């Protein structure tokens, strides 16, 4: 991974993008026309027309799928946000974000199980995430400063292994039930009779969306209005320049890892409440990776919008097209969507013209 940056040639890339669009539209038009000719039993019809007819005819399910996609997308966005925060400030692609989600959720449940009142457990878990951030800075980041990004990435995988062992040793390997009610999260759902069917919004999911929004808002204020936030953005722009104007890199690192830890804790609580808190949950870090391709490693709005796009696209694809090929395509379709997106916008969602990726 060299640090060379490439200026993409504005004029020619535009025309190439336009050509890509044209080719795609033509192929799609041909496919739709072909599927009408071939009739409603043909595969073409099932792929290119059937799902849309179904969306129109059973709108309640469509709305529900969109909603589920948005909720999942919110949570992917939160994990992706964790990646972005750390990458921006310390240049580390933090693979341990997934296990931090599990670790956060487990410590909350663990403290509560040990007899600590719910909100105190929450505070203790936050403190724990701070402790984790401090330790990581001290033990992993500081000795590895100025290393190749690949080495830092591998170090975070090492950290993942360590945290898996440590977490299982302390909390046990079996899944735990999230203390949803105790920390004031709602349960139940709002059911609406819409479009001749019903659409149900879980209160928990609404809460997740609201909390995520508040959190992103707070982070935005923190980054734009506070002194530390400005220092953080300076570090993200140029480490050495930031150092030379007297910004303490170490302090900044602890703060971003702590922020990522809080984001992870929130994700852990939300996802834990939706299913349960177990070590299997760390795979959701993998689910956030296509979001990164889409939104870029350095863009906070990219992570959020990318997360929502991936969430909705993934659920829609699985629901309407998954059964055609035997289902369970959720595991890989987001990656292909993200790669397909790069075909049209090589710079990603909010990427600038000067990009390292291409």
């Amino acid at each position, binding site marked *: 991974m*060299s640090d060379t940056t*490439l200026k993409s040639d504005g004029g020619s890339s535009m025309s190439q993008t336009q050509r890509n669009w044209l080719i795609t539209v033509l192929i799609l038009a041909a496919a739709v026309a072909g599927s009408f000719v071939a009739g409603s039993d043909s595969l073409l019809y099932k792929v290119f027309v059937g799902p849309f007819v179904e969306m129109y005819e059973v709108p309640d399910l469509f709305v529900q799928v969109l909603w589920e996609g948005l909720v999942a997308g919110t949570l992917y966005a939160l994990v992706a946000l964790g990646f972005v925060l750390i990458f921006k400030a310390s240049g580390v692609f933090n693979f341990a974000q997934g296990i931090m989600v599990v670790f956060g959720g487990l410590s909350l449940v663990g403290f509560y199980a040990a007899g600590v009142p719910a909100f105190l457990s929450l505070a203790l878990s936050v403190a724990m995430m701070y402790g984790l951030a401090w330790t990581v800075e001290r033990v992993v980041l500081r000795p590895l400063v100025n*290393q190749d990004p690949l080495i830092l990435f591998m*170090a975070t995988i090492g950290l993942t*292994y360590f945290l898996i062992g440590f977490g299982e040793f302390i909390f046990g390997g079996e899944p735990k039930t999230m203390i949803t009610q105790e920390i004031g999260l709602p349960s139940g759902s709002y059911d609406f009779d819409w479009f001749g069917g019903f659409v149900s919004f879980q209160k928990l999911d609404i809460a997740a969306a609201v909390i995520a929004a508040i959190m992103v808002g707070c982070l935005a204020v923190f980054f734009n209005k506070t002194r530390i936030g400005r220092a953080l953005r300076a570090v993200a722009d140029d480490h050495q320049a930031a150092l030379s104007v007297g910004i303490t890199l170490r302090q900044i690192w602890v703060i971003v890892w702590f922020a990522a830890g809080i984001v992870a804790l929130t994700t852990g609580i939300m996802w834990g409440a939706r299913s349960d808190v177990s070590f299997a949950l760390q795979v959701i870090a993998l689910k956030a990776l296509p979001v990164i391709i889409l939104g870029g*490693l350095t863009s906070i709005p990219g992570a959020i919008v990318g997360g929502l796009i991936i969430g909705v696209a993934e659920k829609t694809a699985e629901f309407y097209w998954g059964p055609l090929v035997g289902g369970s395509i959720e595991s890989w379709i987001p*990656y*292909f969507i993200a790669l397909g997106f790069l075909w049209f916008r090589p710079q990603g969602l909010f990427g600038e013209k000067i990009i390292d990726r291409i």
Partner: protein
Amino acid sequence: MFYREAGQFKTNYRTDQAVFPIFQDKIGVLVILAFLFLVVPFWFNDFWLNSIMIPTLIFSLAAIGLNLLLGYAGQISLGTGGFMGVGAYSCYKLTTIFPDINILVHILLSGFFAAIVGILFGIPSLRIKGFYLAIATLASQFFLEWSFGRIGWLYNYNPSGAIEVSTKRMFGIAITGPHATSLTRYLIVLSIVVVLTWVASNLVRGRIGRAWMAVRDMDIAAELIGIRLLQAKLTAFAISSYFAGVAGALMVFMWLGAAEVESFDINHSFLILFMVVIGGTGSLIGSFMGAAFIWVLPIFLRAAPRVLGVDISAATVEHFNFMIVGGLIIFFLIVEPNGIARLWQIGKEKLRRWPFPY
């Protein structure tokens, strides 16, 4: 004293470019080979051969494959597990379609199928690089995993969904399946690995390898001196996948005896990436040392409490195992980010002066 290059003059290019230009290295390699071929078979028991030697050699081959891509051509891939799977499944199909052809031919052929798949999934490397490429190769990992489970033809529609190895003979001796002794399988694996390592070492010294290294160091510069990026990157993916594919076929046919989709999951890709990074990127001998370290360490850790007579439960051992492996990985990256291969080099430097340091 023993390791001295003094007096070894090269009088023509041929000797200067030899695989082992130093006389002591030649002897060293011959000694190691003699040990592996002549001593190990008589000295090591079944457990050593089956659980340590055979897997280490197979993983070394896969690590060499990834090292060609990562260490020499500078492209990160997280899809090694998937490519190993392609090798294993195509070898299985070849043995069922052409049961009369020697299994060794099948194993070596199966790598070509992996190479084709590798080229297909290497195409994104032309547009994206760094971590974005790593994430894009995850698409291949997940898509391949999904295909192995979904396409019944690949596993001959077995109700179990697994591929199984039947007994094949060569010169009347069983070389695969349950009747093959671990010694036979070990010698076959060792021979294949030695031959392919020799091929790899010549590849990286030759035109192709030099093109890869030029691309790795700076792709624009490489392009300017007339290296075709497309060709260089895709050959890197193809040859790397060939090695991974052969390793995958060996893994199923010479070691495990049966495999499910889960035998080729994402954790494998990470495992092999670890072997490459810990061993040392851009070093073939490092691939062997990395594989040995990452594979053997947990086995020793598991065996330790029983041998030392410490009474702790198997689960706790596993927890500590994770912690120690994770911690050691971080420790290694801190102490020697260039991998064990670098330590090896330092060791040789010391030997050169020993016993008269200055």
